């Protein structure tokens, strides 16, 4: 028992888990003793029950939200990387286009979403566009920064060996940009989910049914608070899962050489 308790990895998982269990336990017991009505604030057991009852509908909603999120994320990665490549190819392109990238970034998605939802007939597509707009900027800025952050000594070496622009890009700029790119992926994956949920809210208020956000809205209309919590829990879980996947992908790609992914023992 001692060695397990002393293991860093075990403590890292067990400690937060223990805190969670205690909190949920206190929540259940406290609210049961105080007899808080379910329509005000549900107990964990109410949420579990609601999840059992509305499980299929909630999972369907989850799939809708997940699909929008992943589509938006993929589009943001593709577009963002392409735009970043354009930016580093020519200073003129970057100077003329960068302000518009910032413009897109600072405009709140809630404000543009109604417009896009009206303009684009297909709900799924319009929501994907909204989420893409939110997720795009970190990819552009991080990848651009990465492609520019070339070791000057190595850049000099490539020049001396008369390397072509393409070879310099493939052999030097892209590998060097990867740590920045993966940093962008982590931020962007979370933003894609937020963008999808926000856009769904806007669409949901307009009566167009869709994913988990609509479930929350609908549960609010009918004062089904446990279902609201169940949907909320699914959104949080999705966000955490996305983040964990990005961390794993980044570790897989960089662990062999980059400082950020090298453990303390090596």
């Amino acid at each position, binding site marked *: 028992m001692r060695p397990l308790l002393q293991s860093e990895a075990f403590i890292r998982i067990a400690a937060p888990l223990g805190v969670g269990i205690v909190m949920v336990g206190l929540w259940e017991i406290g609210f049961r003793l105080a007899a808080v009505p379910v329509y005000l604030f549900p107990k964990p057991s109410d949420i579990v029950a609601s999840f059992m009852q509305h499980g299929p509908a909630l999972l369907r909603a989850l799939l809708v939200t997940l699909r929008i999120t992943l589509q938006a994320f993929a589009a943001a990665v593709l577009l963002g990387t392409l735009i970043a490549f354009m930016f580093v190819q020519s200073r003129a392109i970057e100077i003329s286009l960068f302000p518009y990238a910032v413009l897109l970034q600072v405009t709140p998605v809630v404000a543009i979403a109604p417009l896009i939802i009206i303009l684009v007939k297909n709900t799924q597509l319009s929501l994907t566009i909204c989420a893409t707009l939110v997720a795009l900027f970190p990819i552009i800025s991080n990848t651009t920064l990465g492609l520019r952050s070339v070791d000057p000594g190595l850049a*000099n070496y490539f020049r001396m*060996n008369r390397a072509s622009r393409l070879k310099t890009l493939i052999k030097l700029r892209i590998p060097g940009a990867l740590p920045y790119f993966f940093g962008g992926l982590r931020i962007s994956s979370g933003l894609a989910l937020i963008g999808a949920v926000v856009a769904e809210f806007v669409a949901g208020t307009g009566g167009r049914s869709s994913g988990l956000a609509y479930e929350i809205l609908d549960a609010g209309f009918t004062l089904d608070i446990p279902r609201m919590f169940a949907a909320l829990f699914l959104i949080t879980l999705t966000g955490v899962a996305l983040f964990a996947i990005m961390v794993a992908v980044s570790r897989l790609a960089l662990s062999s*050489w980059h400082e950020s992914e*090298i453990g303390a023992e090596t």
Partner: protein
Amino acid sequence: MNALPPGDRFEDKADHAREPAGRAPVVEVLSAEKVFQNGARGLAPIDLTIADGEFLTLIGPSGCGKSTLLKLIANLIEPSDGRLLWWRGGQDRVGQDGRRLAFVFQEPTLMPWARADANVRLPLELAGVGKRDAAPRVADALARVGLSAFSRHYPRQLSGGMKMRVSIARALVTEPNLLLMDEPFGALDEFTRNRLDDDLVRLWWERRLTTVFVTHSIYEAVFLSTRIIVMAANPGRIFRTMTIDAAQPRDVGFRDSPQFAAYCRELSAWLAEASLPQRTGGAA
């Protein structure tokens, strides 16, 4: 103990622009000078001939233009006036078979994401050599610097001295005919530096690879060189030339010999002289 040698005992009084007997010149610096864009005179007109098989070291106080001269020789910068010849021809001769030059920087400048062998393969790859043709050459270059066992290691897994060895292997893999090194071991501790110097002497002796070396270290210069160019600053110029006549190949024995100590003492005195502020009327 013997008395100190007279001041010019080791000086090579001959014109250092002359053609060394029987050996073809690799680089000829013909009244080349360098004036920087801010008007500073980096190098006064310099004449220098580097012969095939020489190990030539440039040494001098900071600002004496030794790195500038090396960059001129490497064809990385152009002279403001005068010209340089490589293998008796223009710069278009550089890069052809039998006329390749390689440069080793102060830093190893390795790609952190590539293993040692991939780093060594880089110049071949940039020259369009296929992976299969490159593999034996990469293995050979790594073996020559004693890193065969570390070919699959990433730079971060290697010590500073090993990284520098990879950098040297990367220069050797192209089979250069002229090797240019700009203070390659300046950042290493003395012990590691001595070991790398031992290896460098051996590598040079194996193929008589014409080498131009820049350093701040008197001991390193004496140990490695067949000829040392002492430079002075304001403006950068050749101050004196010393020829080191010691048996080849050199080893630890040479480093411990009285002959080595005498050369070092003399070179040290010259450097002190070269570092003195110039008397009035000297600079233009």
